[in-house]
């Protein structure tokens, strides 16, 4: 889509940038203050995982519109090491880095749709959508 916003993630400063872009986009799309914060938080977790595990990647933000709904999608994409077990990674408290292990399962709770694909040695893509209610 032409209106997508692409933020390269190479350091933790880019996490802040992605979050700000997401916040602005969500507000423009008409989300409430609470939802804007939920979206910014989800972006923060996904971007943080890129920095922590893949060193670099990108966050792509866009607006989706279907016949009777409007929403924001966040795609997080990297060519890092990939995730060995997605089942494990999606469990509360599972972390290979001494983290709280709440990033991925938490993001799933924050949004309406959550898709994760990962191939060992190839990278990880997470695509989430939050609909305007």
């Amino acid at each position, binding site marked *: 889509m032409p209106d997508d916003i692409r933020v390269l993630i190479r350091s933790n400063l880019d996490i*802040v940038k992605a979050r700000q872009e997401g*916040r602005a986009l969500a507000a423009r799309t008409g989300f409430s203050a609470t939802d804007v914060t939920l979206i910014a938080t989800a972006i923060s977790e996904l971007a943080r995982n890129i920095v922590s595990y893949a060193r670099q990647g990108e966050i792509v933000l866009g607006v989706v519109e279907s016949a009777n709904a409007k929403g924001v999608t966040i795609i997080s994409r990297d060519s890092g090491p990939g995730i060995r077990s997605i089942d494990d990674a999606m469990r509360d408290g599972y972390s290979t880095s001494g983290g709280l292990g709440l990033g991925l399962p938490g993001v799933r709770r924050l949004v309406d749709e959550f898709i994760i694909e990962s191939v060992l040695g190839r990278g990880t893509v997470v695509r989430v959508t939050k609909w305007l209610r």
Partner: protein
Amino acid sequence: MEVPILKQGRYLIATIQAALSDEDLLQFRRALLDRVIQFRSRGVVVDVTALDVMDSFATRTLRDITYMIRLRGADTVIVGIQPEVAFAMVQLGLTLEGVATALDLEEGLAHLEQRARSSS
């Protein structure tokens, strides 16, 4: 961006600015611990009013700071978490268990006073 740390009597007040980088946070942790030791502070108020997001990493860092300060014999209270931020935190599963929280700076200082009274 440096986090300003103010000394007020036996307490320290640290005001976190919006959009801190990880380095800023780690630098803040070191500086705060140094000050607690230097001034023999009895308590620390960390004001996060300006934070528009508290993600897993920021929460863990704050929690760790609190634990480290406790090892120095001082109390920490986090103040100024915004309603939307609190809502997002609990959805993520971040509850800051074992860390004291208060509405704002004034309440945070009152909380520290009360702790000091009940322990002396």
